């Protein structure tokens, strides 16, 4: 018995050794392939993050050497009225934009899902606005949303509705910005469309046999089956909304003219951070602002992940 056992053991060891060697080769190859990304991450993301964390404890104007001020920048954050204002604006905008963008994208994706052979064409059409530079989008929507002569209000007037001053009335600035950013919803549409295509047809057929109508099928089949995609876009859109910058800066803060007529209803957190860093050269304070935003985003994302466990269905899960 000993000999065969020994042979088997030797074979197992040899096979194990070969597998380990193969695994090691694969691991090395894998790291080789992702090494460029890792280097990029270390140099352009992690390094700057560490640097900005250190700077957040300094008084630094990017010209002279930074001077350590301890927690002073973080103390100032608590006292700065504009931080609270900018944070409030950003959260309100995110609360409006994220559900709106998901709903619009899902509606468009469902329409596209019903289109037959021409779906590729329409998919491209819906995605094209995403390719438009956001600065151009901001400038364009300043014209479209003008309260007096803008296209949107002219259209509303045809239906007897006197539209609001989207770009100048503080109550309507954020809804106006939501409309502006919905222009770039094409990326989310493509994700939802891919998810919708993956929903097995037999689930719908079974639901129909059980007497389910369109709304019930949507609620009980479609939504659970694409919940993974919905959750992914929820996370991504929330982070994007909390970092809102380009469109708002172009419309309300960019250039001499717009900065003169800046509207505090559009003072988003990252815009305030940018002003502190590049207009007033308060790099240390801006770094502290950046880290506060990072922590806020981490907390919100963690809550979303936690809550999602109850609602998100992943195919292949054990329970």
């Amino acid at each position: 018995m000993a000999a065969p056992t020994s042979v088997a053991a030797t074979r197992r060891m040899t096979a194990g050794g070969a597998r380990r060697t193969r695994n090691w080769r694969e691991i090395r190859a894998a790291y080789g392939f992702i090494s460029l990304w890792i280097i990029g991450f270390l140099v352009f993301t992690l390094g700057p993050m560490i640097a900005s964390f250190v700077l957040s404890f300094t008084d630094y104007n990017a010209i002279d050497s930074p001077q350590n001020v301890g927690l002073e920048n973080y103390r100032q954050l608590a006292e700065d009225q504009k931080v609270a204002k900018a944070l409030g604006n950003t959260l309100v905008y995110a609360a409006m934009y994220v559900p709106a963008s998901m709903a619009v994208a899902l509606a468009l994706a469902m329409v596209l899902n019903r289109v037959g052979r021409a779906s590729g064409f329409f998919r491209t059409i819906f995605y094209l606005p995403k390719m438009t530079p956001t600065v151009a989008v901001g400038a364009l929507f300043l014209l479209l949303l003008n309260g007096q002569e803008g296209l949107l209000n002219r259209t509303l007037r045809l239906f007897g509705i006197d539209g609001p001053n989207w770009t100048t009335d503080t109550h309507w600035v954020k809804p106006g910005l939501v409309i502006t950013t919905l222009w770039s919803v094409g990326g989310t549409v493509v994700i939802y469309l891919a998810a919708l295509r993956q929903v097995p047809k037999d689930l719908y057929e079974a639901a129909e046999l059980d007497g389910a109508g369109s709304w019930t099928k949507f609620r009980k089949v479609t939504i659970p089956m694409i919940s993974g995609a919905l959750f992914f876009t929820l996370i991504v859109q929330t982070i994007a909304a909390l970092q809102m910058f380009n469109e708002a800066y172009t419309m309300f803060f960019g250039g001499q003219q717009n900065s003169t007529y800046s509207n505090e209803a559009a003072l988003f957190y990252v815009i305030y951070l940018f002003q502190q860093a590049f207009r007033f050269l308060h790099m240390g304070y801006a770094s502290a602002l950046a880290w506060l935003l990072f922590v806020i985003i981490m907390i919100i994302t963690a809550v979303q992940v936690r809550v999602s466990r109850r609602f998100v269905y992943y195919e292949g899960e054990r329970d």
Partner: protein
Amino acid sequence: MTITRRGLLAGSMGALALGVSACGGVNKSSNNDATKGGDSGSLSTMGFGKPDDVGQARIDAFKSAYPKVQLNINEGDFDPQQFLSAVATGNVPDLVYLNRELVGSYASQGAIQPLDDKMASAGIKNSGYREAAIKEVTVDGKVYGIPEFYNTRNILVNGKALQEVGLTLPDLSTSDWDKLHASTVKLYKANGGRIARIGFDPKLPEFLPLWAKANGADLVNPDGSPNLEDPKVIEALAYALSLINEQGGWSKFKAFRDTWDLFGSGNQFVKNQAGAFPWEGWLVNVLVQASPKVDLQSLPFTDRQGNPVSFQSGSAWCLPKGSKNPAAAVNWMKTMTSTETWLKAGEARQATVEKNKSKFTGLWTANPEADQQIKAKYVKPGQTGFDKAIENYYASTEYAFAVVGSKAGSEIKTAWQDAVNRALSGQQKPDVAMKQAQAEASKAFSAAK
């Protein structure tokens, strides 16, 4: 604890970039090409924008005077992020062209150098420039910029609208605030809840310094500290705000004003969309080209005692920290702002005027001698509304004031502009808004080195 600046620089810039477009870069001059006389080597500029006929004529004048200097003009407008990145990384232009109101902040940060010694060596005298402009670029007794253009404000009036409602020019005098209020209401026109014509546009927030001065107050004290909570400033803001509130309120007012074709042939005077407003002199040049037959009238902005008052602003040439060819840079500043060069610019403008069969509407610079000579040579006196407007702008160069240069100039301006915007949008009452602005600006002033 002092942290090594260079070690953290790349990281901090990257971390704060936040997806905003990277700076455009600056033409770099080599380290070893600076010469004592400044008549050779390369010379790079930032912020000069794309030169027009007046700018090109002066560039040509410099090239002619210093043919061995290799000139690299970065044609973008001044961009604070680009400038700051350039200074921080040591990749600085030799010269930077920026608004004079920014000079104080950059000077206090050490981003630009004092010029007194270099001006003395190059024979550039403060007396060659208008006092108000020099005052604006002077911080703690040192001059940080050579002033270039000189924009003043007067009131431009749509004669057609005035006649339509039976008013005369004195009815729009800013000396009698009650009368101006009544005239504004009379000139204002609305159809079905939508504005059809703004009667009098007080030009808030940008002209608050003018309204405050007319009411006897300055926004910045002589020592550079903010004076935003002064009751006279608040009173001036409340009055100017009341003019807007009588004309539909800020959101409608601004939305309507945004539809004006300011530079086009269908501008606000041609379309009868505006009654009157204070504005800089360059608009006269736009109007005379776009709509020479418009019934333009004008009058000086006056304080409440009836004395003419105007505030000036404009650009300046500055020497960034680390400029590699400072001698050539100072030669450029001197050449670009000398009387001889401005006369060549005047000649170029006259050629453009003749080509377009238009009218010479004036060239207002921080060099009073140049202005006098150009005016004498090219401005033809007359009795039209345009002629009178041109005369008013020349007159206002003699009494215009400057907002005092401050080491926290940028922060102070942002504070009061934001306050006015809060008041305009109804978020805060003028006194509350200016109180907050004063607190923000004072904090920035105290923190500035």
